[in-house]
């Protein structure tokens, strides 16, 4: 904890913010890729410390937000099957599928359990040999090694009642998809530090070079984030689209090679649909054929699931930084944190939920308080 406190020093934070204010000469749009970073930015009020010129766009790195409706409906359908225990990370439970969320399914009698690690789900399968235990394995490269380990372990233990509904997504293809979009506004990226601690950052220099954008590998504590933003602004101002590692205490160029080997053994790349973004080629992982016995999609014949996003929800454009949450017609009326239409309104780190809370603050603050409550381009 002492280690953490050192990266939350208020005085140093103010100094970094001051340095950013001093060096910025014109507007810049910077995307923090990871939902954990968005959460820390909102939780600590970092966005309010920045000069008006620096606009932070919350990127598609919240695994909960980008898991497609079809996958959630599939999880709900599997959870409703007899004998199934559906295990999931906690924040997936409130994400709305077409009809309901997993919390509602639980209230209707489905056995839905929150676990903190896929290995807990493996243990539940060992403890309940007469039940089918399905782990809802979503997430980026960060959660993938533990999921790979769980499948690996289940095979070693000869478990026949454990499977995973996999919807893994990968960061670099998403960054590239955003950069290729004709209406892209993002000029620099804060890459997700925890993803890089697994994967390294060897994938980024070609991206930075090809698209002329600075990419800064950034951590999650307030000082990490401010340092990442400071470096990004410095690279933007200097016109040097380099890759910098601002999270060297956790990230090396090569990354965690052992984890990467485990991932390569269990998973293979595949095209993946992202909620709000559509299908991005080679942007996901699925289980290799050798592990198909553990793939819930094969084990449970759910059939075709037709889904339709609420037509009014524009969370996809929000995720790409193309519109502000409050430019969506449903924002704050049809869609609120209590009645979310899109996943970006679900968790506190979702861009829409964050905007909803700060928007209320802004509209009730007395004009005598000049503090900008939001610098997302309002």
């Amino acid at each position, binding site marked *: 904890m002492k280690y953490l406190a050192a990266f939350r020093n208020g005085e140093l934070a103010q100094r970094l913010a001051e340095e950013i204010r001093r060096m910025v000469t014109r507007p810049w749009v910077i995307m923090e890729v990871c939902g954990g970073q968005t959460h820390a930015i909102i939780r600590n*009020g970092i966005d309010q410390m920045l000069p008006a010129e620096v606009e932070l766009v919350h990127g598609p790195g919240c695994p909960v937000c980008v898991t497609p409706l079809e996958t959630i409906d599939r999880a709900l359908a599997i959870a409703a099957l007899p004998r199934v225990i559906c295990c999931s990370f*906690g924040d997936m439970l409130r994400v709305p599928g077409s009809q309901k969320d997993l919390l509602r399914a639980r*209230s*209707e009698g489905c056995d839905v359990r929150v676990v903190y690690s896929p290995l807990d789900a493996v243990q539940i399968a060992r403890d309940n040999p007469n039940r089918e235990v399905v782990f809802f394995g979503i*997430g980026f490269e960060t*959660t993938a090694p533990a999921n790979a380990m769980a499948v690996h372990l289940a095979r070693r233990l000869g478990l026949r009642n454990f499977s995973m509904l996999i919807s893994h997504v990968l960061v670099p293809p998403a960054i590239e998809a955003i950069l290729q979009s004709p209406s892209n506004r993002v000029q620099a990226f804060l890459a997700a530090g925890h993803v890089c601690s697994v994967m390294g950052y060897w994938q980024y220099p070609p991206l930075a070079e090809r698209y002329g954008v600075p990419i800064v590998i950034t951590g999650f504590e307030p000082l990490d984030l401010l340092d990442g933003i400071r470096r990004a602004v410095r690279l933007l101002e200097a016109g040097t689209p380099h890759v910098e590692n601002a999270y060297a205490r956790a990230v090396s160029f090569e990354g965690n090679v052992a984890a990467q080997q485990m991932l390569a053994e269990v998973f293979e790349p595949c095209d993946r649909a992202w909620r709000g973004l559509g299908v991005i080629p080679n942007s996901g992982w699925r289980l290799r054929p050798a592990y198909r016995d553990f793939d819930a999609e094969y084990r449970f014949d759910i059939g075709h699931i037709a889904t339709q996003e609420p037509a009014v929800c524009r969370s996809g454009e929000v995720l790409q930084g193309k519109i502000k949450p409050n430019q969506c017609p449903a924002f704050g009326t049809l869609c609120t944190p209590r009645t979310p239409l899109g996943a970006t309104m679900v968790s506190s780190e979702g861009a829409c939920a964050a905007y909803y809370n700060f928007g209320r603050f802004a509209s*009730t*603050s007395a004009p005598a308080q000049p503090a900008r409550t939001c610098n997302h381009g309002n």
Partner: protein
Amino acid sequence: MAIDLSQWTCPLPLRDYPSVVLGHGGGGKLSAELIEHLFLPAFRNDALANLADGAVVTLPGSSTRLALTTDSFVVRPLFFPGSSIGDLAINGTVNDLAMCGAHPLCLTAGFIIEEGLPMATLAQVVARMAEAAARVGVPVVTGDTKVVEKGHGDGLFINTTGLGLVPPAVEVNPSRARPGDVVLVSGTVGDHGIAVLSVREGLTFETTIESDCAPLHELTAALFAVRPDGVHVLRDPTRGGLAGALNEIAARAEVGIVLDERTVPVRQEVQAACELLGLDPLYIANEGKLIAIVAREDAEAMLEALRAHPLGAQAAIIGEVTDQHAGMVIGRTAIGATRVIPAPIGEQLPRIC
């Protein structure tokens, strides 16, 4: 009798939920909606409309004010580090009385027992209740026992009702929070929720985090001893935690509350567990802490009064009431920026990343 939806103040939020979900009991927005749109319209009366931890009723033809409160306890597991469902059943209701400004007089106890519960377990729970009641000095004067078929309950549910006497000159009420008032908390937040979570989810930490379950009537008495009228609002931040309680007060009193997060006492172990699980200690349940919103001129003396009691040794001033941003709680964060501290919606769920 058929239910006439048009009689509900605004049934819309409930129609979103054709069935009850766990969040309706989570102490957040969903709970509030259930109360506001279903229970309140059905039972409408002045004492209930106050929506405090209990009701204060004046005896006819007298100035004697009685406080009445009831609470049901459904915690799982029945025993957890530092406490048990038995301790909770006594202290929780004593605390609800104390938060009405009342001195506890007596309690009732109702038991709903699932067939098959080991007799030894029941005896242990009842022994803990008896100890807790003796410590507070409040007798359990009547009770009820029901047994339900196996599978129709979760071991043991307990309901306790408490009766208390509100001393003259005491006037605590959520709507009394006014700009300039100071917010006190009696100690570290989040201990109970993390203690229960750690055993329920089988999480082990290097040190055991114990529940803070404790009776708070002596702390409230200490506050009143400074100046009864200086205590404007009392709240024990149970489900929904500090953030939930402060949001409720801000909404009821139509004031803003500024919370200095750097001054909120949090045990290091609890903070570490929250970091690991992606939880916010401000939203975690407590069972032995109180929030007091007090007149500014009494704040220092009341802080000292709390600190003089063993249960309030780590009491702190954590914020103030303002006429800005009515209905909202704003936090000053660890790095000196500000953020909105929204009301919890349902259960707090661990985050994936």
